[in-house]
């Protein structure tokens, strides 16, 4: 999605905004979790399911489910970047995104214009993925493994 493009669909009303505000975590683990969450929002289970389906279809949500911390399962998570020539940007994007180990990828304004996060099941997987990207693209990958984590909590409420 381009930054300048108006989001298609989007948040329709106060209930959508409430879903965003209340459901970024703490989704219940019980027999009827949607019913329980819906009751807190004051809507029916069926309405919550329909709204989530629409928010996912409209790409307001990228996913609904568990968010994993790969390091806690023995894996690794590393930020990396490369400088893709403008003329090859789409091709390089396709090559990088083709790896399932690439969890996120963002275009950024800098000489290093492609920033992606590698998430692998074992620590060795990071070096393998970087070697593969360097081989496939012919470009140098800079890895920025975290040396210390000060804070991580990506919960943003709707601004619309």
């Amino acid at each position, binding site marked *: *999605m*381009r*930054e300048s493009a108006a*989001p298609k*669909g*989007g948040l329709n009303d106060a209930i959508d905004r409430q*879903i*965003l505000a209340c*459901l*970024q*975590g*703490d*989704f219940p*683990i019980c*027999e009827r*979790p949607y*019913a329980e969450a819906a009751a807190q929002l004051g809507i029916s289970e069926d309405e919550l*399911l329909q709204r989530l389906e629409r*928010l*996912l279809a409209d790409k307001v*949500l*990228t*996913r*609904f*489910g*568990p*968010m*994993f*911390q790969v390091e*806690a399962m*023995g894996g690794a998570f590393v*930020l990396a970047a490369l400088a893709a020539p403008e003329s090859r940007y789409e091709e390089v*994007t396709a090559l*990088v*995104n083709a790896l*399932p180990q*690439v*969890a*996120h*990828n*963002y*275009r*950024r*304004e*800098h000489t*290093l214009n492609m*920033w992606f996060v590698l*998430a692998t*099941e074992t620590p060795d997987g990071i070096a393998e993925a970087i070697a593969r990207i360097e081989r496939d693209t012919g470009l140098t990958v800079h890895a*920025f*493994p975290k*040396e*210390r*984590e*000060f804070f*991580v*909590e990506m919960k943003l*409420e*709707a*601004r619309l």
Partner: protein
Amino acid sequence: MIDDLDRALIVATQGGLPLVPRPYHAIAEQLGLSADEVMQRLRGLLAAGVIRRIGAVPNHYAIGWTANGMTVWDVADDQVDELGARIGALDFVTHCYRRPRALPAWPYNLFAMVHGASRDECSAKAEEIRTLLGAACRASDILYSTRILKKTGLRLGA
């Protein structure tokens, strides 16, 4: 660490929970487990931190956070840990890490993500960080994202 069943559960849910009234029963059926076992294991994975949380993952552009800046700072090595902790504690910073420099091209060792409805809002937040860093900061930059190229999250092979 996780075992084979945990891993199967991660593979079954990494694309999202089924949008049906009994999602954990649906997963249990798919994996040949009981729903109780699925729920118990998910609770265990949450407690162990393998699952950070369960819920909605928004596309932050689509909900109004159209300016997303990775602020990066070259901070004196002997002060970066103390200052990093203070920047991570700012309520508007969503991620904050110390990372290695890649000299000469990349002199920055402290990364903090800021978000706003405009770039002005992000740069005002960056100014707050700059004030906090004071003389310990030698150079800085903000790298705005202009396009989400991929946002799938973790994907283990089936």
